[in-house]
């Protein structure tokens, strides 16, 4: 029971991370119609910039704004220099150009920081684990990630549903041409949304630093799962990204944790391990296929 609870928390934390990444990606895809493969690079840039500042000044909290702002600035630069030229182009051109951005940013990071992973210092208060229930120890830092993720989800909800910019964003993801026809400065809106997406990616990158390793190519590791979240949640929907992110995080963690043991009831242990780990690594893709079978546009598609 304790084990199931702990795994649920693990799944929730992974799902929150996926949501932070997917929220930006789904907005960019939904509103501008751009497939941005370089989203993982913005995640990496946020992680490197923040971690570098944290190392330099010896404080986790100094790294946080540095990571966020650097990722956002990188997002603005990417949007104005490259992505802006791709709005009218075919998806294939967008994939090609943003894939090139991945290669360029990976090499830039190698030139600046080298190939060796770097390390974020954690405040002492966050580095241990606490006993949530008798026998249920959970790392403080992962709880912080869950908290920050829920806070961001709440703020995004307010931003999208209660502000003028949010209204334009919603309108943009529903009918881009109509918004433009109404005289909204759509270019400005695009840049803002891209910057917001980059900021969220940077936040996700910096927050994962102390858990995973901050190294070249870290963005590609999470990118694929992020796209799966966007597709399941429905392109352009923050709500979809949240539900799909948390859902996928939990499904993925639960499958990894329990499928091999469940299979051991039917199969010899060695086979159960092999089949279990094989199927659980396919889990989220199977889920995506199932969802698309029933809801071809994802769970909460923007009305297009």
């Amino acid at each position, binding site marked *: 029971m304790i084990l199931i609870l702990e795994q649920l928390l*693990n799944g929730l934390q992974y799902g929150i991370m996926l949501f932070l990444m997917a929220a930006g990606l789904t907005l960019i895809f939904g509103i501008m119609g751009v497939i941005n493969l370089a989203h993982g690079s913005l995640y990496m840039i946020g992680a490197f910039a923040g971690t570098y500042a944290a190392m330099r000044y010896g404080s986790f909290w100094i790294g946080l704004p540095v990571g966020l702002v650097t990722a956002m600035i990188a997002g603005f630069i990417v949007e104005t220099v490259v992505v802006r030229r791709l709005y009218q182009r075919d998806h294939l051109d967008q994939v090609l150009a943003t894939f090139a951005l991945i290669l360029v940013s*990976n090499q830039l990071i190698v030139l600046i920081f080298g190939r060796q*992973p770097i390390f974020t210092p954690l405040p002492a208060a966050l580095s*241990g684990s606490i006993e949530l229930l008798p026998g249920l*120890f959970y790392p403080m*830092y992962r709880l912080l990630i869950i908290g920050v993720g829920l806070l961001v989800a709440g703020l995004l909800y307010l931003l999208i549903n209660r502000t003028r910019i949010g209204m334009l964003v919603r309108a943009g993801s529903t009918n881009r041409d109509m918004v433009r026809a109404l005289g909204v400065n759509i270019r400005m809106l695009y840049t803002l949304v891209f910057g917001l997406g980059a900021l969220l990616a940077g936040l996700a990158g910096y927050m994962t630093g102390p*858990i*995973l*390793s901050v190294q070249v*190519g870290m963005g590609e590791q999470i990118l694929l799962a992020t796209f799966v979240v966007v597709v399941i949640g429905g392109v352009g929907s923050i709500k979809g990204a949240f539900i799909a992110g948390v859902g996928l995080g939990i499904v993925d963690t639960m499958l990894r944790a329990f499928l091999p043991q469940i299979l051991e009831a039917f199969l010899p242990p060695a086979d159960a391990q092999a089949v279990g780990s094989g199927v659980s690594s396919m889990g989220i893709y199977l889920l995506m296929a199932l969802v698309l079978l029933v809801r071809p546009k994802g769970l909460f598609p923007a009305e297009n």
Partner: protein
Amino acid sequence: MQIRSIIAGVATALSLGSAAVAEDAVKIGVVTTLSGPAGYLGQDVRDGLMLAADMEGGKLGGVPVEFLVEDDGLKPGNGRQIAEKFMYDENVKLLTGIIFSNVAGATVPDIVSNDAIYISPNAGPSSMAGAGCDKNYFVVSWQNDALHEATGAAAKKLGYKSVFVLAPNYQAGKDAIAGFKRTFGGEIAGELYTQLDQTDYSAEMAQIRAAKPDAVFQFLPGGLGIAFLRQYDQSGLRDQIPMVLSEPSTDLVVLNAVGDAATGIVSTAHWNTDFDNAASKDFIKAWYEKYDRPVTYYASQGYDTGRLIASALAKTGGVDDIDALREAIRAADFDSVRGDFAFGPNQHPIQNWYMLDIVKNEDGTMGAKTRELLLEAYGDSYSAECKM
């Protein structure tokens, strides 16, 4: 195959003229992994190798050498292409550098069947250690399984009754766990295979906690291991369940990225920075004069490869007589940084393995302290199958 050997023949004939011009420098082909998260492995092997030549003023064994270095990007196809380019276009007879077993598996058979010599500074896959051995194939580092057999022996010696084992779900991961079990012989409290690109191990942590083993063994190289060790500490398991690790999981880059969370780990290795022999001391001194990054096992393996080549070239004076060169390499007539070194019947090393404690140095960096000799003059589990 036939077309290839004709091309090889033509290429050799064409390059005879140019070879005469540049006769003085022996070309050494270095196919290695320089890009991606594992790029630091190749970088260290390359720099260790070149350091050996630098210390002799651009020569190895008194013979001027020229290194041709290319990045295989951890793609087996690339490795093979680069090796062919070196052999056919540049007439290279001596190759080294490959980091990963999957690249080696695709590249090395092609090299050795072309009558060129390959000396591995890192990967030592089982497929080429037993029945698949070759007279043109040498391994300076270790046979893959031996790394983990040493760790299994350490766990047994430390008196652990049950161990939880985990590794990525690919060939080297399965070999690691098989190697560990071979020498450990105790109870396996749990066995998990993770995805190769997985860096979040929270689910695995919970399972380890539930299984309550005496110790944990994991083979998660590079960034994977950094993530695992840090999460192990954050989950509070470090104080409850000790960890025994093999060499690739505890190089100085990993340890320093992990920081304090690595103290108290027991590791096993064939070389360590505190070894008290002249070759090791010279190497470490020269390394820190030239580079400001920590010296790793990979760097030492690159350096030993360079010293081995130097010992052979000192006898043959060049690579024109491949049979003489092969004999000279087989003699292993050099002072390895690890102390005693010899090639076994399958041309893989026979060497000592040691138990190390991971500690924090006085200057705040992480390091390893040698505790005791674990396995003496240890070869590998495949040499009996090798018929040369």
